[in-house]
């Protein structure tokens, strides 16, 4: 027997999925153990190994691929462990990072309420201070013409002074390197020759996108994160090999694919938010199995709320991504973070008597009052506990305890009494407020992107999600809410459903209609780059595929759409583009533009421009087979664990509700609302007017009853 292991380290938990030769999956989960995460990984592996009847050592010895995602990059920034880095920039633009495009750096990443209060806003301290940026007298214009070439002596002097200032890493970002990297290449060659010990990042290698601020910020982030992330990955590599692992270590990237550990160490910024992106990719895979091409992915946990989507089988790239209020630009799949989660604190505004949920959070520690870790402010999770949803025996595998009495006492004093309501009345009101806000946030991230939720299936993952998203999904009018069997370990599940991906891109603004020869010339170079990488990684015929895409826009307009040229990755070599195929691409651009920005938005009169050319190479990794089980009897009453008093949202009252043990549910079972379903990791609440079905993959599929009848 051989295995593929996926391990995802999140803020609270470390999740593990093991796939065997037969395609069977085994799950493991443990608390994350910062700052040394290996203990948490070991516990999660132990749990999975135990379920497989083996040991961690034997499991790892038999593992071919170890797939990994982690929040190490984010943690490095949060803890201020980033390296001292220096930047080389075009003369006259060395204050690009300092300027942050004016107020943009001051207000971006803030809530709407925070933006309204500029007196209390500041820019985050620059990742590379102004004093560690050195100007280089060189210049390239918008067409890529070198107006002033690089002066090697000047580079050497600048570098010498940075090294003298004690930098561990160097970032290089020159104007228009996204169009012509010649000058940046020249500079980076000098740096690498003179100082092979430094971590070096050039903007054309990592983010050849238009816009010098975001590009320089990406370079700065990458340079600052480089040393710490490289150290972490090297340690992980040693640690896992000491336990007996002899296979390949692959790391998840925010572009939605895996990459060999050496390459991941060179582009640490690619690991930012790769866990949630993995979760989204896992949902896409489940969607493929269920033939769902339109998916909203909502991961609502204790400290974070992430929303992503798959539209017509495609996941879009994120515009203006940010980590801890630092901007970057990278091919990153679109998963947005929203400021509401289980730990969001409830407070009554003393001026108005109106309750507010968030934006303050109790975090993962001390967390909600009912966790009994010393939390003193009532949270959304406490509301869920008071409404009868949480069950200690199932809560984090029965390892954690719940202090309901304390939650009751705190909630009564801080919320119910000020509102002049009894405890359950107040708790249910706060539950409705939370659902309404979650509804607003999901709507915001979907409707604003021009999609109609009614055509979508909502995949609900994360510890808090199951108690709220079925009711929210009902309000949104989605076709169904799916709580995947893998929901509790969705990031790790995403890992084992992912492939190795390499993205190569270049910016080369071209008016449409463009000469097909010129376009093919651009693509040939990019295809060569990714094909070489895949070949070097020994992806043979049938395992390697490439796909082209072009970022396009209407001239004089800012919105850019990434338009796929090839609908599916091609394994058998790409056909050169012709005038006709470029015309098809143009039509696809217009269709996608209309879909996203509305039928009124197209601006043909201005003409169309191709801006950035992308090639995505995929090396196929073996996947779990995930066969669908036969559906059996619908009668799930045998799985009822107990009857208990709990809140039924769509009737706005407390009632006696059956609580089901998920581990006793079988494919085909039908659970009419109202119901509570306890899985070993999380809780799902089914409102009265909905019904949950267990599908062949052990997913819960929750739909609103068409007849509206009670059962």
């Amino acid at each position, binding site marked *: 027997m051989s295995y593929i292991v996926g391990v995802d380290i999140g803020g609270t938990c470390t999740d593990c999925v093991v796939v065997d030769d037969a395609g069977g999956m085994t799950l493991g989960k443990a608390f994350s153990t910062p700052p040394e995460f290996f203990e948490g990984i070991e516990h999660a592996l132990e749990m999975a190994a135990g379920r497989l009847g083996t040991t961690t050592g034997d499991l790892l010895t038999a593992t071919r691929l170890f797939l990994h995602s982690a929040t190490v990059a984010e943690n490095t920034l949060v803890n201020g462990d980033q390296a001292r880095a220096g930047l080389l920039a075009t*003369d*006259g*633009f*060395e*204050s690009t990072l*300092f*300027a942050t*495009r*004016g*107020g*943009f750096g*001051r*207000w971006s990443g803030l809530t*709407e*309420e925070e*933006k*309204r*209060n*500029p*007196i209390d*806003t500041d*820019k985050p301290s620059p990742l590379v*201070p*102004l004093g560690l940026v050195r100007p280089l007298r060189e*210049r390239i*214009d*918008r067409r890529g013409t070198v107006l002033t070439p690089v002066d090697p002596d000047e580079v050497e002097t600048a570098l010498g002074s940075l090294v003298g200032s004690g930098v561990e890493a160097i970032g290089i970002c020159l*104007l228009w390197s*996204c169009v012509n990297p010649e000058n940046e290449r020249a500079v980076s060659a000098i740096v690498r020759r003179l100082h092979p010990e430094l971590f070096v990042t050039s903007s054309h290698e990592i983010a050849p996108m*238009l*816009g*010098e*601020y975001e590009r320089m910020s990406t370079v700065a982030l990458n340079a600052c994160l480089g040393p710490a992330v490289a150290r972490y990955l090297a340690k992980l590599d040693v640690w896992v090999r000491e336990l007996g692992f002899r296979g390949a270590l692959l790391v998840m990237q925010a572009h939605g694919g895996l990459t060999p550990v050496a390459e991941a160490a060179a582009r640490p910024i690619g690991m930012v938010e790769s866990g949630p992106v993995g979760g989204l990719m896992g949902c896409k895979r489940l969607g493929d199995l269920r033939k769902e091409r339109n998916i909203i992915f909502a991961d609502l946990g204790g400290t974070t709320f992430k929303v992503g989507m798959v539209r017509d089988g495609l996941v879009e790239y994120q515009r203006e991504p940010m980590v801890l209020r630092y901007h970057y630009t990278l091919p990153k799949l679109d998963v947005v973070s929203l400021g509401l989660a289980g730990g969001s604190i409830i407070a009554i505004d003393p*001026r*108005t*008597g*109106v*309750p*507010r949920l968030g934006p303050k959070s109790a975090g993962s520690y001390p967390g909600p009052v009912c966790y009994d870790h010393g939390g003193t402010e009532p949270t959304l999770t406490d509301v869920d506990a008071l409404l009868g949803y949480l069950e200690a025996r199932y809560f984090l595998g029965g390892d954690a305890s719940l202090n309901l009495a304390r939650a009751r006492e705190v909630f009564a004093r801080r919320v119910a009494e000020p509102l002049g309501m009894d405890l359950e009345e107040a708790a249910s*009101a*706060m539950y*409705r*407020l939370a659902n*309404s*806000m979650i509804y607003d946030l999901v*709507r*915001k991230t979907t*409707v*604003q992107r021009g999609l109609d939720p009614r055509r979508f299936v909502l995949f609900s993952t994360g510890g808090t999600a199951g108690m709220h998203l079925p009711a929210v999904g009902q309000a949104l009018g989605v076709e169904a809410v799916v709580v995947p069997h893998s929901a509790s370990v969705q990031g790790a599940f995403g890992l084992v459903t992912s492939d190795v991906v390499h993205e190569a891109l270049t910016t080369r*603004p071209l008016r449409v209609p463009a000469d097909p020869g010129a376009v093919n010339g651009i693509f040939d170079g990019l295809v060569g780059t990714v094909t070489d990488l895949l070949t070097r990684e020994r992806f043979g015929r049938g395992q390697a595929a490439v796909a082209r895409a072009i970022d396009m826009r*209407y001239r*004089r*307009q*800012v*919105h850019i759409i990434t338009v796929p040229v090839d609908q599916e990755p091609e394994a058998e070599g790409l056909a050169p583009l012709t005038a006709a195929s470029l015309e098809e691409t143009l039509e696809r651009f217009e269709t996608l533009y209309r879909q996203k920005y*509305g039928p*009124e*938005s197209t*601006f043909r009169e*201005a003409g169309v421009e191709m801006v950035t050319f992308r090639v995505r190479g995929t090396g196929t990794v073996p996947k779990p087979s995930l066969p669908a089980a036969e559906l059996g009897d619908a009668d799930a009453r045998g799985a009822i664990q107990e009857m208990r008093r709990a809140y039924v949202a769509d009737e706005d009252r407390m009632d006696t509700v059956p609580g089901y043990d998920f581990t006793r549910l079988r494919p085909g079972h039908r659970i009419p609302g109202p119901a509570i379903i306890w899985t070993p990791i999380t809780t799902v609440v089914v409102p009265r007017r909905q019904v949950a079905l267990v599908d062949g993959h052990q997913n819960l599929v929750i739909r609103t009853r068409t007849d509206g009848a009670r059962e």
Partner: protein
Amino acid sequence: MSTTTTVHPVTFEIIRHRLNQVIEEAIAALENVSGSPVTNEGHDMMVSLYGPDGGLFVGGVGFLHHLTSAAQAVRHIIANFSDDPGIGPDDAYMLNDPYTAALHPPDVYIISPIHVEGRRVGFVANFVHVTDIGAIDPGGFSPNARDTFQEGFVTQGLKIVEGGKSRRDVIETFLRNVRDPQMTALDLKSQLAANHVAKESVRALYAEHGAATMEAVSRMLLEQAERLISERLSELPDGTWRARQYVDMPGGLYRVELAATKEDATLTYDFTGTDPQLDLGINCFYWATWGALFAPVFPLLAWDIPWNEGITRRFRLIAPEGTLVNSTRPAPVSIATTGIVQVVNNLSVLVLSKMLGATERYKERATAVWHGSHVSVNLNGLDAEGEFFVTNLTDSFAGAGGARATRDGVNIGGEIPNVVSRWANAETQEAHTPIMYLYRRPVIDSGGPGKYRGGVSHEYAFSPHGTGTGAISVVMRAKGLAVPMSLGLFGGLPGCTIGTTLHRGGLDASAVEVDQWGTFRIAERDAQVIRFMGGGGYGDPLERDPLLVQADVALRLVSRKAATEIYGVVLSGGAVDTEATVARRAEIRATRIGRPVPAELRKRRAIPSTGQRYGEYLQHVGHGPDGFVQCTWCGHRVAEGDDRWKDRVDVSQVPTSTAGRYRDCVPGMVLRQFCCPACATLLDTEVVLGQDPPLYDDIRRWRSER
């Protein structure tokens, strides 16, 4: 709260949250459809909801002067067109007449009534700065106009959509009047899309919660805002605060005077004494001034209160007719937004900050002026393909923060009236426009010196590059070249002035001309250089931590010269020379009052806050005329309770360049320093014409005395 219909506080919060979401969704629709750089990169736009009577109901972010002006536009539509041609379901009106409600012609309002089951429950209105409005100069700002008839198309209300159907005859008539009809048509489409989204969302809210609940919540929102702003105003002292800005225009220096009087829970802005209107487009009509005073009120005073009419009810405006703040037709107004609107913004920031600074509770919210003057640069010409282009550079949106009571102003950090502005990347601008930036860099000494330094501004240089004809045109309309407008607070000094110059033959060439106003040709070998205005400083620069000065010098945000001369910080190598700094600071104090200051008064003493604050360095001890005014730096009894303290302290008038480089002014303008006679601490500063009397603030009663 309302007594007629009671609404559950949770329901109230659900609806409040959703209403803000409605605005955000509408703004997203506006940006999606528009795609224009000025809307998307500069966020030069606004969407808000209005009540059935036109009152501001839910204000969004964007340029905040528009929140109230669009309210006036809605009221005008209701008052004039209800019967003929009528305000029916799914109609939409256009209104951009500055002498009715709008700020200037290119900021076009699109106003849509919201009907629920045939009954009108409110309005949604938005603006964008449209690409062109058909004025004498391309782009909407018209320095060459001498009356408003040269400022392009205006309407006091035009029904462009009737019952959901666009009126083609009307829209095509409008588009026939503008230079870039296709892009302008897209602007209109984006505005209609935004209103459509908002309308549908509000209807959904009514469907979900019912009209009675929605109306009760609407009433509660207004009542709550009015109650909260009243409470806040009541916490501020009663009194009158004065501020003045001088405006340098080609051919003269003009003044805008403000006396803000707060009595109980009402704040009155009185602009009596302001100069007559000009034949240059910087003038404001009444509603522009009304909007301009509120743009800082929302973020500074009402940051945590819903932005609606409940707030505006507590304010009064006195703006004499025929003046810069209330011009009469046909005086030109197309430059109002970067002209007198911004001056009124600045004055409003100053009086609000002085009021906030006079309270123990809100003193930390006081701020010097941010980004005192825009330089909005419009370029047009032919690109390499021979196509005509017209575009605004976004550099002026970069801004610079004013220093605050507890920290420095944000460097290159934005402005108060638009809390979400930003500039476009050089590469983005170069991709669209045949120019090449030579640099964009921070300006040394541009931030107003103070205990906390004003944010530094930036300077750029560009040359045309890759043009069709070897040259392009630039349309200019700048103020603040000869007067600093980012004034300091409580002893803080002003930020630098604007510099705008054309360098014929390149940056190194000696032929330099000032391009403040009008249309200029720039060849590819020429360069335009613009220095923007730094933020104002807060508090006496001698109180600034020498280590902060050292850090500023290291980053070249402050020069060694300014460090020594203004901050009194002497650096040796890169580090503070403590002994020399102590000596230098003593020297500056002595110079201020013409006599040495004893050593024990040069350090801030622990003066108990037993009195009522005037600001950073003064408090009123004891009651009214029986009490006295005390310097909180050294404890000196500066003035008696019935004195005007400015008449009892040491006053000196020094050149404005005392505040640093780039501060040379029109002849006769001085930096007036008010210093404690004992310790020479800088209590207040004014930038004034030497013969003008001091600006006297008059606090009649602090809250605790009521």
